[in-house]
């Protein structure tokens, strides 16, 4: 029984990997005339792994071009005329990372369903190799995944708290500025009215009308 169990323990992570290569992730249509771009706001030092493939197409021999750009416009990945592909990178700066897909050399009015599996952070980790390295199996692996997920949730909450603090400061600044600018506008209005009266009075006195 035991050697069979260990065999199964080894096969389990492989089976996990196998399931990921089916049509996972969100699918969207790419037609021959348009470019479909998806983006995500990513922090720095986050591992991003993307897996795209043509899930469903009305005609065969269609290939797609993929391009991934960083927030500053640097090209991180570019592949032309492929049916499927994979890209991975670590974000160097925080910002909007965009992946664009289009169909080059395709006849008009052709649609392709492209499946994109975009994983960042915890879900992008290579659990198969971690399982092998630390000799985790089954339940322990799942619990380790949960532990990492909790950690990332904690980080995200801290980030959210910082953003909220910044926004509160901005709001309070706006509030005080509204008061100051209102008073300033009123003073400018009164000063200008006073100047008008004074100037016209001296003008009419000069003209001997008053």
């Amino acid at each position, binding site marked *: 029984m035991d050697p*069979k*169990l260990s065999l*199964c323990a080894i*096969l*389990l992570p492989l*089976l*996990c990997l196998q*399931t*990921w290569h089916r*049509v*996972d*992730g*969100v*699918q*969207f*249509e790419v037609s021959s005339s348009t470019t*479909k*771009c*998806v*983006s*995500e*706001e990513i922090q720095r030092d986050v591992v991003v792994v993307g897996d795209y493939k043509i899930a469903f197409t009305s005609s065969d021999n269609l290939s797609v071009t993929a391009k991934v750009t960083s927030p500053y416009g640097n090209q991180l990945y570019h592949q032309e005329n492929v049916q499927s592909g994979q890209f991975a990178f670590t974000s160097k700066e925080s910002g909007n990372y965009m992946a664009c897909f289009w169909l080059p050399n395709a006849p008009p009015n052709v649609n392709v*369903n492209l499946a*994109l*599996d*975009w994983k960042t952070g915890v*879900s992008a980790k290579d659990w198969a190799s971690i399982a092998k390295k630390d000799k985790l199996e*089954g*339940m322990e692996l*799942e*619990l380790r*995944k*949960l532990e990492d*997920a*909790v950690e*990332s*949730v904690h980080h*995200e909450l801290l*980030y*959210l708290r910082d*953003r909220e603090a*910044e*926004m509160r400061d*901005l*709001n309070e*600044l*706006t509030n005080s*500025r509204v008061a100051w*600018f209102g008073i300033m*506008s009123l003073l*400018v*209005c009164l000063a*200008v*009215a006073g100047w*008008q009266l004074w*100037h*016209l009075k001296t*003008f009419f006195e000069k*003209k001997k*009308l008053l």
Partner: protein
Amino acid sequence: MRIWALLLGIAATALSVCLRTADGLTMTVHKVECVYEEVEYDGDMVYGNFVVQDYEIFWGSDHPGIELVVTGPQGNKVHSSTSKEAEKFEFRAPRRGLYKFCFHNPALAPEDLTFYIHVGHIPGIQDLAQDENLKPVNVKIAQLAEALEAVSAEIRYMQNRDKRHRSTNESTQRRLIAYTVAESVMLLGASIGQVYLIQQLFSKRIGYNRV
């Protein structure tokens, strides 16, 4: 025979716990944009949220929001909502298959939309009965993973809404400064213009009585 049953059991466990599809992306919606998600099992819980990121709103009424219509694999409408700027949705998928999530944009200008869709599966009582290797603890772990995923989804939703509020606040700040300066300049200009116009009227010396 037993080894195959064991393998099958482990495969089922792997499938039920490893299968965590969660997608959160931003895309631009012109008139209608559709995304598809595969639901593996009957009765899986599908939940998600979307937030419209409006960066340049002038009047709020010009941007009514985005409508979401979800159709099942047989073409039946599973979920629909009216135009909203941010919404959380949840439904139980009756059948397995490819579900279509269509976002309709009633406004003329394209909108940036950040959405998040998650399909969660928890092994049920039938799976426990059929499969001798699936223990109740696996079910509990799957439930825990799903709960954590729900927390993560909520955080994403809050982050996206925070982005939207932040851009509104920064726009308020900019508008405040710009409109105050413009108002002061125009006030000064109008009053100086008035004074000079009146001076001109009175310089013509048409007659004492014509004033």
